């Protein structure tokens, strides 16, 4: 029951609500603008769900079919909208089921607030029914976490959680609330958090470092940029574009940097890393200046660190001081939010055409096109390729769709060949490589951005890891376009087995169910494509649909993703075949 009390503070009248902890949780979510959340109820979180029932006109709670689906949906929502995603679960198995999504969010810097119910505080540590130490379990994979045992802690902890999740380098936060704290009545007041004493969201910008960086850029003959998700998280797309265009610097992206710069931009030279493009990988070892912008030199990007850009000076634009010198030593570290530091450096850099240097990229692009892309996109063999499916999606979407990819070969094909005009359009599990990510993440992305086309691309393996979320689509009517590229294999593992394990295909071949029948079972329009002549029309039919749609494309069983940098090799040793 809600009651109101009046308090006097500094002469002003301030209204306090006398409410339960559970109702306070809902009020906190509303204060933070979290009106679309994902979750799964259970015993220890029932008081909060009871309040959600009361507030269902204000908060849309989406019942996913598994708690893992809730975190991935919240991630998809966060990545597509730039807002904080929220996932709720009960204690014990409900809470532990969130962990994969939380770990994924941690490594990909996705802002999440996860709320878990917990057994009553007098039962803590007694191995009570559905009790797990979720704070202990989630500690290594959260930016911050906290267990609430008193209702009065709820407003302050929620305010702090949202502030920490979204500020600086974003990340997941977990709040565990004991059941007695959910029932307890207290006087509720909410104040948003704007600072935490021990936490500095953004490091101070050193203008001296900005000047040093500008001098290096101005004197470089062959500078090259590798940009990551920091550009998107910092909402610095315009500043980044102005920066690269003034100095005409070829710019390559990491998997999570994709879509920060339109694919068609003349300075966009492709993806770096294990399955990245030939030119930016090879020329990483020829540039005289490597400028890292909001990226963390992941091992999938660098290959062998002892042979990575050793000839180049390195400038690192980064918000997280712990990333400086972690993997690659920076000659100049420009700490701060890239939105600010790129704006600061713009007036200090000189205009430059760099035609000859850009031509080197173009020449290597031609080699990659002839040796890899031509056959990927316009195959001479009968079997359908994953790349040609992407080509048709590009044609149908015009590059305006949000592409949510799962993990595996199809993910690499999606990132290599999908065209993007707009930022926040590539949603994939980059750092953790979580199979099963795409289906729930695409639901979150679509619900967060209902006016945009959301196309999910998965393999037959990853699709089945969270296939139950078709039920969430059935219930929410989220108009997600689901594309499964079915090669009846765990394709990426099979490729590695072929190349590095003497074709010993241990447990990678899959006998699959009738995917179309399953989709139809969930009342989703569905079609299966086995022939090239049906592909374009089927993709168009899918994209024209106003509702959710499932498209299975049977692709070549043993198609490989190239280029490829084998583990431990140098980026310039990239293989084209």
């Amino acid at each position, binding site marked *: 029951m809600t009651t109101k009390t009046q308090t006097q503070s500094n002469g002003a009248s301030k209204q306090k609500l006398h409410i339960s902890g559970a109702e306070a949780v809902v009020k906190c979510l509303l204060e933070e603008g979290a009106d679309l959340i994902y979750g799964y109820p259970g015993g220890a979180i029932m008081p909060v769900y009871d309040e959600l029932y009361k507030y269902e006109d204000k908060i849309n709670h989406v019942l996913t079919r598994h708690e893992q689906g809730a975190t991935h949906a919240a991630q998809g929502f966060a990545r597509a909208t730039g807002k904080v995603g929220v996932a709720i679960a009960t204690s014990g198995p409900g809470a532990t089921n969130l962990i994969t999504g939380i770990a994924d969010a941690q490594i990909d810097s996705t802002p999440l607030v996860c709320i878990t119910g917990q057994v009553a505080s007098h039962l803590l540590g007694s191995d009570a029914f559905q009790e797990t130490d979720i704070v202990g379990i989630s500690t290594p994979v959260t930016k911050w976490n906290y267990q609430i045992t008193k209702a009065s802690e709820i407003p302050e902890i929620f305010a702090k959680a949202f502030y920490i999740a979204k500020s600086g380098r974003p990340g997941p936060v977990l709040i565990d609330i004991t059941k007695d704290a959910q029932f307890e009545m207290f006087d509720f007041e909410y104040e948003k958090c704007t600072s935490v004493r021990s936490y500095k969201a953004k490091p101070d910008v050193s203008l001296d470092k900005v000047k040093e960086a500008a001098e290096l850029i101005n004197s470089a003959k062959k500078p090259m940029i590798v940009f990551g998700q920091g550009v998107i998280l910092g909402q610095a797309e315009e500043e980044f574009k102005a920066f690269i265009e003034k100095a005409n610097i070829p710019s390559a992206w990491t998997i999570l940097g994709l879509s920060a710069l339109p694919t068609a931009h003349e300075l966009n030279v492709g993806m770096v890393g294990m399955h990245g493009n030939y030119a930016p990988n090879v020329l990483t070892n020829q540039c005289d200046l490597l400028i890292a912008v909001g990226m963390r030199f992941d091992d999938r990007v660098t290959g062998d660190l002892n042979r990575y850009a050793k000839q180049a000076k390195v400038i690192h634009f980064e918000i997280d001081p712990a990333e*400086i010198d972690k993997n690659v030593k920076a000659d100049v570290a420009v700490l701060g939010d890239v939105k600010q530091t790129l704006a600061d450096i713009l007036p200090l850099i000189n205009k430059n055409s760099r035609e000859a240097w850009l031509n080197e990229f173009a020449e290597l692009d031609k080699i990659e096109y002839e040796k890899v892309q031509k056959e990927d996109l316009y195959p001479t063999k009968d079997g359908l390729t994953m790349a040609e499916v992407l080509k048709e999606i590009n044609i149908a979407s015009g590059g305006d769709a949000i592409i949510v990819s799962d993990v595996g070969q199809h993910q690499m094909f999606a990132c290599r060949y999908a065209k993007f005009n707009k930022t926040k359009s590539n949603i994939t599990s980059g750092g953790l490589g979580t199979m099963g990510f795409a289906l729930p993440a695409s639901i979150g992305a679509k619900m967060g951005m209902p006016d945009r086309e959301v196309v999910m691309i998965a393999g037959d393996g990853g699709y089945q890891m969270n296939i139950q979320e078709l039920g969430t689509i059935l219930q929410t009517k989220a108009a997600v376009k689901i594309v499964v590229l079915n090669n009846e294999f765990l394709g990426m593992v099979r490729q590695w087995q072929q190349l590095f394990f003497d074709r010993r295909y241990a447990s990678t071949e899959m006998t699959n169910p009738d995917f179309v029948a399953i989709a139809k079972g969930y009342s989703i329009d569905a079609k299966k494509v086995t022939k090239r002549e049906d592909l374009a029309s089927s993709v168009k039919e899918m994209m024209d649909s106003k509702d959710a749609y499932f498209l299975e494309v049977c692709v070549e069983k043993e198609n490989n993703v190239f280029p490829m940098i084998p583990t431990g090799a140098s980026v310039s040793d990239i293989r084209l075949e």
Partner: protein
Amino acid sequence: MENRQTYTVSIYTENKLGILNRISGIFLRRHINIESMNISKSEIKSVSRFTLLVKVTEEQIKKIIGQIEKQVEVIKAYYHTDEDTIYQESCLFKLSSQSLIANDEIQTIINSSKSRIININKDFFVLEKSGTKEEIEELYHTLDKHGIMQFVRSGRIAITKDEMKISTLLLENN
């Protein structure tokens, strides 16, 4: 490979549950054994001070400090070499009271080692010693032949020779 050496790590944190778990996890992930650890109040109200001893390379300790400082409730972390600090450990020995009565040598050891008896009864007495790791080890070996009933030593505590401006930092972050 760069040489490993002993570093004292000083970490100032908010006095909150769970921070020990976060800090120890950073070392665990990197397979670095914490040689000793002490957690206490600091000179600032509600701020705890962790003092850890680890044997790593300078490159490793720099990266670890970066990861520690990322933790929301960590205010500041520092690393120091032995030359940068004034440090002590403390230990307690439990020995048989009979050995004290029957053996003059123990009296001499107590006096020369600057240790002190802090508890005595008819069965045993407890000897306390503060000093460097080496001094404590030397005393252990000297007393060992007289039969040590129990022995316990603390983690290192250390004060830096240089100033650590935590109060200024806290003001800046507010």
